[in-house]
């Protein structure tokens, strides 16, 4: 056990507990808060792995963007003390089927990639991992390169999609 292992265990326990709390919580705004903790824990794991850029993006986009959006929409739409709906039979069956299907896909991917056989070799991140960092200018060059392994086309496609979303939002919100 070195310090990276200890931090990994702390972060994982924190994330697992917060994820369970997110699903179990009755109050929707509490669920959003627990989700914030899960996302911050994920960012912590990225920092532990030495991916500082990815960690910062995780905090910026998810913790600072998505959760704020959730909380904002909860504040704008619902009244005080908004509770979740009752657990009726069809809802329970549908969620059980969905979770079993999700777990099945997860298990299939694990078995297909022979992860169980390599699991002993995998282990938690150690101190050796955090030394190699992808610098941000490397990422920037990949993002805007049109050569092999470049991401110019997806990058431009995503920016077009975002522009379309902004225009659509303006049209929906406009007072005609």
């Amino acid at each position, binding site marked *: 056990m070195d310090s990276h292992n200890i931090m990994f265990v702390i972060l994982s326990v924190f994330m697992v507990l917060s994820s369970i709390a997110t699903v179990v919580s009755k109050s929707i705004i509490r669920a959003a808060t627990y989700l914030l903790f899960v996302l*911050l824990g994920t960012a912590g794991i990225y920092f532990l792995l030495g991916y500082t850029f990815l960690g910062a993006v995780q905090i910026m986009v998810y*913790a*600072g963007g998505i959760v704020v959006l959730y909380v904002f929409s909860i504040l704008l739409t619902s009244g005080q003390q908004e509770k979740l709906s009752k657990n009726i039979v069809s809802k329970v069956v549908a969620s059980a089927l969905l979770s079993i299907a999700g777990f099945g896909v997860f298990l299939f991917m694990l078995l297909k990639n022979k992860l169980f056989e390599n699991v002993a070799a995998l282990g938690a991140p150690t101190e050796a991992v955090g030394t190699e960092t992808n610098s941000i200018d490397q990422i920037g060059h990949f993002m805007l390169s049109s050569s092999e392994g470049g991401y110019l086309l997806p990058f431009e496609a995503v920016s077009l999609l975002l522009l379309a979303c902004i225009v659509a939002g303006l049209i929906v919100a406009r007072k005609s």
Partner: protein
Amino acid sequence: MFFDFSKVTNWLHGWLTGFMPEWGAILTESALVLLAIIALYAVFAIIMIYMERKICAAFQCRLGPMRVGPWGLLQVFSDVFKMLTKEIVNLRKTDMFLHNLAPFLVVSASMITFACLPWNKGAHIIDFNVGVFFFLAVSSIGVVGILLAGWSSNNKYALIGAMRSGAQIISYELSIGLTMLTMICMTGTMSFSEICMQQYEHGWNIFRGHVPAVLAFIIYLIAGNAECNRGPFDLPESESELTAGYHTEYSGMHFGYYYLAEFMNLFICAGMASTIFLGGWAPLQIPGLEGFNDIMSAIPGAVWFLGKTFFVIFLLMWLRWTFPRLRIDQILSLEWKYLVPISMLNLILMALAVSFGLYF
């Protein structure tokens, strides 16, 4: 010649690894740094509260606190002790967990951004190659705390204050991000230590980047003031309409945390302005004046950093006590119709200046 703080930290690290394993030494150092951050946080908050009261008094032709201690120096300390001894009121029919959590979210986001500031050469606490981006990311967590505070207070004034504050902070983050992007465009790096080192070697960014840098500096000051919910943009807590905004229902030290975070966000905003535009710990150097440069280099970097930061804080306080409060629609149209387009044009101007080599 210029004092490098990393000598001290290297010596400490060597001394600690002498009798404990590597990770133990790092843990001890982290604890020491944490203590230092918390102590500095409290000390600067006290200094700034006194400064605000005196400056406010000066602009309103008053004297400010004069009774407790010489020139009222002990007034802030007695205020702090009063705040610490107050009762924390638990409200009925509210979500107690979120109500108690919200101030800690706000204050911890502000403390992490506080740790990004460069105090001296070699005295950077958080220093990644994506430092500026990390700073922007962490500062956006505070909004969640403010929104949760407004919601969990179960009070209409608090909720309206929180909504106004959230809308304002999210909008003005855009301008801050764009102005920082403008400066990153020139420096070519996002790491705070490298930004400071460049300015130490080639001169402050505000002189190197001339017109676009000065424009970016002015936009940053306006947006930073709004980001701290201060100055003419303090309508989330406009006391005449909303009692106190999102922290109406908080008492004792929980209110104290919001108060602390508000003042320290001002300090962080000013510190960031001095890091990115005014050189951080880098002393003022004029090419060709050797004697002057030597004298300036003899002043330690921490003094330079704090001097620049308090100069920017003074500018922001001047702004606050001079202009009347804006309405919410005026605030949002100022951001979306004026500041964002101007800072986008400014970014293009800076990109042109950099690609044609038109900077120093």
